[in-house]
């Protein structure tokens, strides 16, 4: 076990492509980040930005073909998981790393009672008897606020929020070191979302799990994350602590995201949307991927890779605007 404050998960130079109709989609481009024990990293971005692909490549569940991991190194707890065999990976999946999917309806098998779905995972990953696994599964249900007496009920007997709790119980049953939560509350109503977010935060504190939270909802990030990374067209374009990003957003895209939200305080006549659309992933623009939509774009932005500039300690931004601060 690594000490606190030590890097727990490190993703270096992750690059993933999809091939569709003989066209190449650059889903993830040289993405690097790290995560400390017990910390939460939020990946924010719009549909198709590549957030889910990043999470799936950590878990190595990308559909291959069409997806292909071209490069990158993923190290967790000193183990290079990107180099493990499929056999070894299977032990880690659902054990040390587990994932919560967006749609609780499809993540549960409708024909198996919820308790057994949890205990099965337990038996697969730890060497315990069926009875013990059942007992533990009951405890997990209690932990997420479902009476253990509902162990024998089937998914259709639960409401949406309850199902998502079951999914969370399933994901946390094996005490994972890393939890990948892909839009865990998007399908839920706000009052239920509030319950589920609180639940995840509580459990995370209790079990000291690290988490990567994928969402498009900046409010959810504000509430749960320690660090935030903005993803745009397969790249992390801004990375920093929650304070850095929310109080001093730097990249024009991050700023644009905040501006397009209707505010809950103050008055504004018109919203300020980001001009244009997400670029065609098969035909990304040269230079900064955001340059066609960026109000500040200059000649420099239209060619060559934009390096990562450190705006302040630990706050990185891929934008030439911050070039002088870096030097």
């Amino acid at each position: 076990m690594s000490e606190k404050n030590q890097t727990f998960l490190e993703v270096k130079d992750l690059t993933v492509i999809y091939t569709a109709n003989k066209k190449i989609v650059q889903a993830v481009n040289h993405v690097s980040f790290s995560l400390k024990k017990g910390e939460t990293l939020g990946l924010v971005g719009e549909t198709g930005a590549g957030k889910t692909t990043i999470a799936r490549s950590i878990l190595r569940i990308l559909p291959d073909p069409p997806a292909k991991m071209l490069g990158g190194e993923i190290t967790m707890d000193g183990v290079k998981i990107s180099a493990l065999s499929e056999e070894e990976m299977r032990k880690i999946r659902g054990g040390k790393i587990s994932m919560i999917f967006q749609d609780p309806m499809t993540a549960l098998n409708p024909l198996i009672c919820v308790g057994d779905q949890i205990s099965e995972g337990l038996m697969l990953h730890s060497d315990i008897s069926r009875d013990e696994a059942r007992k533990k599964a009951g405890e997990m249900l209690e932990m997420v606020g479902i009476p253990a007496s509902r162990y024998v009920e089937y998914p259709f007997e639960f409401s949406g929020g309850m199902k998502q709790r079951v999914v969370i119980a399933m994901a946390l049953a094996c005490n994972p070191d890393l939890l990948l939560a892909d839009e865990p509350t998007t399908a839920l109503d706000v009052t239920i979302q509030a319950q589920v977010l609180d639940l995840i935060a509580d459990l995370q504190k209790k079990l000291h799990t690290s988490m990567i939270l994928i969402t498009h909802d900046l409010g959810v990030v504000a509430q749960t994350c320690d660090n935030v990374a903005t993803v745009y067209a397969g790249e992390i374009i801004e990375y920093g602590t929650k304070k850095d990003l929310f109080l001093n957003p730097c990249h024009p895209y991050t700023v644009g995201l905040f501006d397009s939200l209707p505010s809950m305080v103050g008055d504004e006549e018109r919203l300020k949307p980001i001009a244009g659309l997400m670029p065609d992933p098969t035909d990304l623009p040269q230079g900064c991927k955001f340059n066609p939509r960026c109000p500040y774009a200059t000649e420099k932005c239209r060619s060559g890779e934009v390096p990562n500039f450190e705006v302040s300690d630990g706050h990185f931004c891929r934008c030439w605007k911050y070039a002088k601060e870096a030097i």
Partner: protein
Amino acid sequence: MTVAAKPQKIRKSSYTRDLLERLFSTWNARIGTFIIVVIALACIFADVVAPYGYNDMDFANMYSTPSAQHIMGTDNLGRDIFSRLLYGGRYSLSLGLISTIIGNLISIFLGVLAGYYGGKVETLIMRFMDVYSALPGQLLCILVSTAFGAGFQNTVLALSIQHLPGGARMTRAQILKERSMEYLEAAESINCKKMTIMFRHLFPNVYSPLLVGATMEIGSNIMMAATLSYIGLGVQPPTPEWGAMLAEARAFILVYPHMIIWPGVFIALTVFSLNLLGDALRDALDPKLRK
């Protein structure tokens, strides 16, 4: 990958062209289409292609096995089997095709009504179909043919009503899947007529699996037509329908098997190629594979 700037293409996409492209990229579709087209063309132009008339009797060469003169041999009356098969194909193929079209028109109409309106209309149609399907389709065919007498038209009638319950049920199921789509409500809100919504908005979105079913149904109708002829209820001799030819040949099955093999081969080839085509069509129409 080169990230060269692409010129903005204004491509007018065409659903049909896209579909055909995908369809004929598979060998199943190519082979199926090839066989069926060759057979159909040969039958349509039988006057040109066939070496003999279908009723030309060559008494010098009765029961002859395949030879240069008669490539598939002759039958008990010295008629050239190959020529008879080509002329007979006109009946067999058109029986299959016409009865499938008529049957599907009726069953689709009923199925769309039942699926779209629901409620009493649905209950009425579907319960009727339930009663209807209590009679096995083949038995029904035989019943109709016996009741109305043999002949081309009555065979068409018998064959087309055979698949009604299945077709109506399948159409209804497809409609129900699509029924909750909001574009139907939208069509209603912009004052489209019910018939327009049903047959111009809704139906084009559900026809694909029905088309696959219909393609395969042609094959099974050809077989059923042959069956009817075989038991003497279909097209009557001397009209050379494939099933009728089988029936005539059955007396000689042990002595002159070629008489029964060739019609069998033609039926099998046709049904096989239609099934291949249907399969390929199913894949090509799969919306998940659409670009």
